[in-house]
Structure formats: structure tokens, C-alpha cells
């Protein structure tokens, strides 16, 4: 590569970085505080607490980072936040009791409607309903595969992972797992899924196409009510929020063996991982705080006070 080409490449890279300049902020929904806490990702200082409406739970980032979406469960709507100005810019109806959602790379939101036994797909640009998908009772966790071709919705009271084809928005497979499945996530190649069962106290590894269960790990601590699950950036480890075990479990993604336990605050539910994979945030609901975890040292480096009963967390990086 010639030096002029190199300079041009560097310039283009800098421009691209600037255009999508992420704020580095961490956004946390407070289920009982009816607010969103905004934390500076570098200093761990709270920048602002934004009143958002009754019972905010799920939270997600637009694919281009331009908007933050918040499921305001008690008001049956999605509120939209500007991550730069920290203003609520608009909201749109989202079906009954939106609990949580995942954002597809095309921008659509896949939302679980807890009281309606269905998932709904919304286009946040227009606020219009794109599709409704019938699922089991008390749908909860939603995940979308990195290739954008599959979604998983968990139904807590019918103990299933519903595999949904995108863009058809049709259920193509249903996998029975342990009692009260709460969250799921995909491997980077979209072929595997990992799911937690809160009452079953387990993590399952599933082949997405065949629906075959490839592995199961019961978390030995009987207080463990696993909720959120994420895959590390290198794909080698899983992070599992342990609920009332007040612990984030680190599992080997291949064998599902527990390789580390990180003590955090009480009733840990939500997790978010930084883009570089080095920082993990957990919402410690009963302690009204977020724990910041160093994923190399497997230790808590900071605790940040939030509003009441923090639930979901997302990082704008």
C-alpha cells in the first residue's frame, strides 16, 4: 500500500468513526424508579436520570446507534431516547405489556408481549406494527441471530424456545427446555443458542437449525435463578446473571462448565458487554446498583448507584 493510500484509508476510518461517534454511555432501566439512569462509561459517574414512564424494562440500541429504545411496560409503549442529547424524542404503542425486545440489524424491534402470548414486530421509524407472532404463555426473552435470519422468543409458562424465521416472521421450531426459560442468546456464527431457565436453574446449549439440545448445565447454587446470558466476544465463554445467587457465572461456552463466579449485588438480572469485550455490566435489582466487571480479571471494578430496581442495561459504544 502506498503512503498516500494509507493516509486516505486512515482519513476515511477517522471520518467513519466520527459519523457514528458513540457516546460511550451506559443506559439502565429502573423498573420501579420509572426512569433511565445514564452512566459515563469512562468515569462510572451518573450523568443524568431520565423520567421515562411506568415500569421500564427492556432496553436496546438502534443498529446505527442513533436511538435508544425503552419498553415502558406499564404504559404499553416504546419510548425513544437520543443518546447524545439524552432527551425523549418520541414514543409509539407496542402492544400489551411489552417486557423486552431485541433489535434486528434492519432496525425492526422484536418485542415479547407478556400478557398476550405473542411477539410483535415493530418498525421504530414509522411506529407501525409489521407482524404479530403467536407464541406460548408469558413470552419473555428475545434474541436475534447475528446473521438476522432467526429470532428466539422464550415462553416462561410453557417452557419453550420458539425459533422464528426472519423475514417470514413464522415459528419454525419449538424446543422444550427447563422450567421458566428467561433469556437466550446466539453464537457469533448464528448456529448455536444458549438459554437460561430461571426455575430449572440451568443453562442449555441448542443447535438452532435442528432444535437438538447439545448440552445442559445445572447451576449448583440452588439460589441461582439464572436470567440474562451473553457470549464473550471471542465466543469462548458465557456470562450468566445468577439472580438470587447474587453472582455472575462464567461458563465455558463449549462444555458449559462453570469457570468463575463473580460476586455482584443482590438479584442480578440484566447484562451488557462492551464492544471490546473487556467490560461487563450487571443490573443488581435489589441493591439499586450496576456492577462493572473486568472480564479478564473476573472481578468487580466499580459499583454505580441507579434508580430503584434496575432491570435492563445497554452500552452505546
Amino acid at each position: 500500500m502506498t503512503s498516500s493510500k494509507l493516509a486516505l484509508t486512515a482519513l476515511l476510518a477517522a471520518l467513519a468513526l466520527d459519523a457514528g461517534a458513540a457516546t460511550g454511555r451506559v443506559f439502565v432501566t429502573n423498573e420501579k424508579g420509572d426512569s433511565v439512569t445514564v452512566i459515563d462509561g469512562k468515569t462510572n459517574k451518573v450523568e443524568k436520570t431520565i423520567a421515562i414512564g411506568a415500569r421500564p424494562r427492556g432496553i436496546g440500541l438502534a443498529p446505527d446507534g442513533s436511538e435508544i429504545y425503552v419498553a415502558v411496560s406499564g404504559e404499553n409503549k416504546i419510548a425513544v431516547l437520543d443518546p447524545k442529547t439524552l432527551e425523549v424524542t418520541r414514543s409509539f404503542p407496542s402492544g400489551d405489556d411489552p417486557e423486552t425486545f431485541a433489535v434486528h440489524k434492519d432496525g425492526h424491534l422484536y418485542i415479547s408481549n407478556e400478557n398476550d402470548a405473542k411477539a410483535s414486530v415493530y418498525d421504530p421509524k414509522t411506529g407501525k406494527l409489521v407482524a404479530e407472532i403467536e407464541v406460548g404463555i408469558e413470552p419473555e426473552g428475545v434474541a436475534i441471530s447475528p446473521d438476522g435470519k432467526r429470532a428466539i422468543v422464550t415462553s416462561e409458562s410453557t417452557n419453550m424456545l420458539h425459533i422464528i424465521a426472519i423475514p417470514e416472521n413464522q415459528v419454525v421450531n419449538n424446543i422444550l427446555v427447563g422450567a421458566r426459560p428467561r433469556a437466550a442468546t446466539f453464537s457469533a456464527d448464528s448456529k448455536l443458542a444458549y438459554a437460561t431457565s430461571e426455575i430449572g436453574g440451568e443453562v442449555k446449549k441448542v443447535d438452532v437449525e435442528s432444535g437438538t439440545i447439545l448440552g445442559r448445565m445445572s447451576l449448583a447454587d440452588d439460589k441461582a435463578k439464572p436470567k440474562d446470558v451473553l457470549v464473550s466476544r471471542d465466543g469462548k465463554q458465557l456470562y450468566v446473571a445468577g439472580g438470587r445467587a447474587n453472582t455472575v457465572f462464567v461458563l465455558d461456552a463449549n462444555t458449559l462448565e462453570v469457570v468463575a463466579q463473580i460476586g455482584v449485588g443482590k438479584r442480578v438480572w440484566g447484562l451488557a458487554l462492551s464492544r471490546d469485550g473487556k467490560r461487563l455490566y450487571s443490573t443488581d435489582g435489589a441493591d439499586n446498583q450496576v456492577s462493572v466487571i473486568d472480564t479478564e480479571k473476573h472481578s468487580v471494578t466499580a459499583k454505580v448507584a441507579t434508580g430503584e430496581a434496575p432491570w435492563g442495561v445497554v452500552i452505546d459504544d
Partner: protein
Amino acid sequence: MHSHTKCTASRSYHALALLAVLLWMVGGVDAATPLTVRVAYVGPAESDSLAGARQGIAEGNAQGKFLGLVFELTDSRDVATALASAPVAVLIDLPAADVMPSAKQAAGVAVINTGAEDDPLRARCAPNLLHTLPSAAMRADALSQWRQKSPQSQASAHAWHWRAEMYAGAQLNKRYTDKTGRPMSDQAWAGWAAAKLVTDTAARLKSADPAALLTALREDLAFDGQKGVEMSFRPNGQLSQPLLLVEQDDIVGEAPVRGVATDLDSLGTGDCAP
């Protein structure tokens, strides 16, 4: 114009039918040949147990429709009639004196008692008799734990309460009350739990075989009764479960009572009479 519209409608109907067949062929929802699984109820023509069982069966069908199973609840006054429909299990809401004879009559089929709390019925340990309603001993232990903490309390111990909110109790109460117009009682919960744990287990077995179901219920159950813990049957057939302490129609506590006991085994016993 008219015939053109008709033609389009018919074409799109065919396209839909083709799509349904294709979805079935790729191993999606196997609705083409559903397996029918019958669950029998024996008891009064109207009871909270029956209303709860209906709710549990409806939820079983909300699961079964994705897995190729259809659950049917038969409703009769006596066990002989119930057995004629070849049920996978029999739920009963009968006077205590009729429980053991019913279990004998339905030998080999799970009989789930949702209406009698008598301890001797548990101690008899009939191989096919299970109980979702808490025993009198469980309720007594819950109260005695609670009184260690609140000696003046007038609370009573219950399987369920219409104000239960935690662990998705609110969602279950809403589903039941929307359907029946009534608050969910202890017996309604026991009926719901019996039907739900039967349907969830039959769905996992993909079978209507009573013997396979009875073995799975006794040995492999990990049931979410929407009370925050995994529930299973004790050796004497009693479903272990937390109880709610209720005073003036509101929940004041939960047993095992924190600080007094930790374990579900602190409520009642799993033992058989010698």
C-alpha cells in the same frame, strides 16, 4: 372483474395451503396429526378444582399446539366413568374417605388429589396417588414457623392467594380471573397445578401412556408452580411447595419462613406410615 377477484382469492388460498404443507414438511409445527391426550376430572359438577384444572388444560393446549399435542379434559362424577375414556391421569376433588378407593380403582394411572388435606392419605403412600393440595401438616408447620417470628399473628397458611404477584403469580391470577371471574383459591391452584404438571410432562414424553407419565411425575418432575421454586413429588406423593401466610385477605409472609427455616422439607413430611 368479479371472476378475476374470485380467481385471485382461490389462488391465494392454494398458496396458503401449500405454505402450510411446506412448513409442516420442514419440521415446523406438527399440527397435521396431533396426539390427543385425555385428562380426567372426578368430583362435583362445579368446583374450584375443576375451574383450576380447566385453566391448566387451556395452558397445556397453548403449549401443545406448538408440539403436536391436544389435551382434553373429561368431567365426571365417578372414577369408573372417568377411566372409560382412557385418561393419562385422573384429577380428583373428593371427600377424604373416597380418595384411597379411587386410587385403588385407577391402579397404574396417576390419581392426583386436589381437594383433601388429610395427612393419613399421604402416609398410606399408594403408588399412584399424588397430592397437589398441601397437607394439613404442611400448613401447621408453616404457621408454627410464622408464629416464631410474629407470635401475635392471626395468619393462616395457604397454597395460593389472589394477591400473589411475585414469580409471575400476578400473571396466573390474571389468566384465571379473566376466565372465571373469580379469585384463585387454594383448591383452584391445586387443580391448575395438577393439570399443568400433567400436560407439561406429557408434552415432554410426547406420550399418552399413563404408566410412563406416572414414572416421570414421580421421578423427573421439575415443576414451575409460579411460586418461585422448582417443585417435585415427595416419596409419599405430596407435592413440595412454599406456602403463603395470609392475614386479613392479604399476603403477610411466605413459608419456609426466612430466618426460621430454609428448606421446603421443613413443611410437612415425605414419610410413609410404618
